[in-house]
């Protein structure tokens, strides 16, 4: 499950796109881990995440943060999205100090995350890394790169290419602001890993063309 990998984009807009998430390991530290995931959610919630969610319940636009925390289970995966590495560093430091014992993953630009790990004394920096080797096969089936930059922010493919195209048209026609259209796109992404702030910037850029 690589739901936060393969997010497409250029470094200048990926620098505003970081996902922090936590989970327990089946048959290792799963039992009783729900309380620690709730603690994780309380920590990330104090730092104004752009989005947050749990695959068991949904994202904060659908479910609301209180329901997300209340419904956490030992098998949950809890997520939050941030717009800059400095916010991520503050959040990770608090998680580190809380000694939750959960596995914590940060998805985003690799160089800034490695530097953050070094500054927080996490060695090796990081423990394990996963790269995308891109898209292979019949790539002519894919839409324009700018559509993919938005739709790939939901790794489960819940944000359709058509919905992105409709959002661009709505912004261009003045039916929605970029922010309103981006929120509509964030709703189908049940895990809460879609970044509506980045999507709003990309939608405005497309609509202005």
């Amino acid at each position, binding site marked *: 499950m*690589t739901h936060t990998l393969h997010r497409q984009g250029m470094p200048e807009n*990926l620098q505003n796109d970081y996902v922090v998430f936590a989970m327990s390991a089946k048959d290792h530290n799963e039992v009783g881990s729900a309380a620690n995931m709730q603690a994780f959610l309380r920590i990330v919630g104090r730092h104004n995440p752009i989005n947050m969610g749990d695959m068991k319940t949904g994202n904060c636009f659908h479910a609301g943060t209180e329901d997300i925390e209340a419904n956490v289970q030992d098998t949950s995966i809890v997520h939050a999205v941030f717009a800059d590495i400095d916010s991520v560093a503050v959040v990770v430091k608090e998680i580190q100090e809380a000694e939750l014992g959960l596995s914590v993953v940060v998805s985003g630009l*690799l160089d800034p995350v490695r530097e953050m790990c070094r500054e927080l004394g*996490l060695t090796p920096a990081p*423990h394990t890394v996963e790269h995308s*080797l891109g898209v292979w096969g019949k790539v002519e089936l894919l839409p324009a790169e700018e559509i993919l930059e938005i739709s790939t922010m939901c790794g489960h493919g819940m944000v359709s290419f058509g919905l992105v195209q*409709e959002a661009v048209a709505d912004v261009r026609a003045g039916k929605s602001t970029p922010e309103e259209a981006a929120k509509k796109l964030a709703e189908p992404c049940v895990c809460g890993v879609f970044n509506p702030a980045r999507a709003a910037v990309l939608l405005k850029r497309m609509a202005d063309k």
Partner: protein
Amino acid sequence: MRIDPNSCVGCGQCISYCPMEAIHLTDAGVSEVDQEECVECGVCLRNASCPTDAIIETENPWPRSVRASFSNPLMEHKETRIPGRGTEEMKTNDVTGRFRYGQVGMAMEVGRPGTGTRFRDVQILTMMLAELGIHLEVQNPVTSLIVDEDKGLLNPDVLNEKVLSAIVEFTIPIEKVPGVIERLREVEGQLNTVFSVDLICKVRQNDFVATVPLMERLGVSLSANGKNNLGLGRPYFEEALP
């Protein structure tokens, strides 16, 4: 999914939500789901705010049942007890030790981004890996569909079933990666869909990532962004640094 033609008012607002473009307006002016293309992901039901509740979740017996389990992230696979399409892979590697020094995790997610796949396209990759003598990750739901491990054959019942994506996942010694990349380049044109490829590596002393120079030698571009397990999980899987 099905849309009740007697309830549908033909507003069409469900159409753009479908990741597979499987919903269309009929000549009668109502929305209809193309059952061949629908992957049972549930996006329309959960998000399209149908004004007359005309979208109906249908019972899907085997083999159609695989569509929802591989497409709807809210459904938990019975094989992995994880919602979604893969395993914990590197996300809990600090605790499980699934990927150790000298080993690499690889995965090909067939149908991603956004094109979907039939299992017959997934089978092209499982057969290729079987030829290379590579064993698939046992906890991955695709592996549970294998009926002939030596040949990499999937259950023939599912070959025509369409899903949003399916992940072929395995762990190999790093020395075997060039052979896999070479074969992937040879077979990628046989698939009638796309697939996203990823590579997992445990980081060594001095923050050395062994897959980075290897991919440079092979002429494969690595993404500037990716996933980072921070090593905060406990109990920590201990392994001496090489």
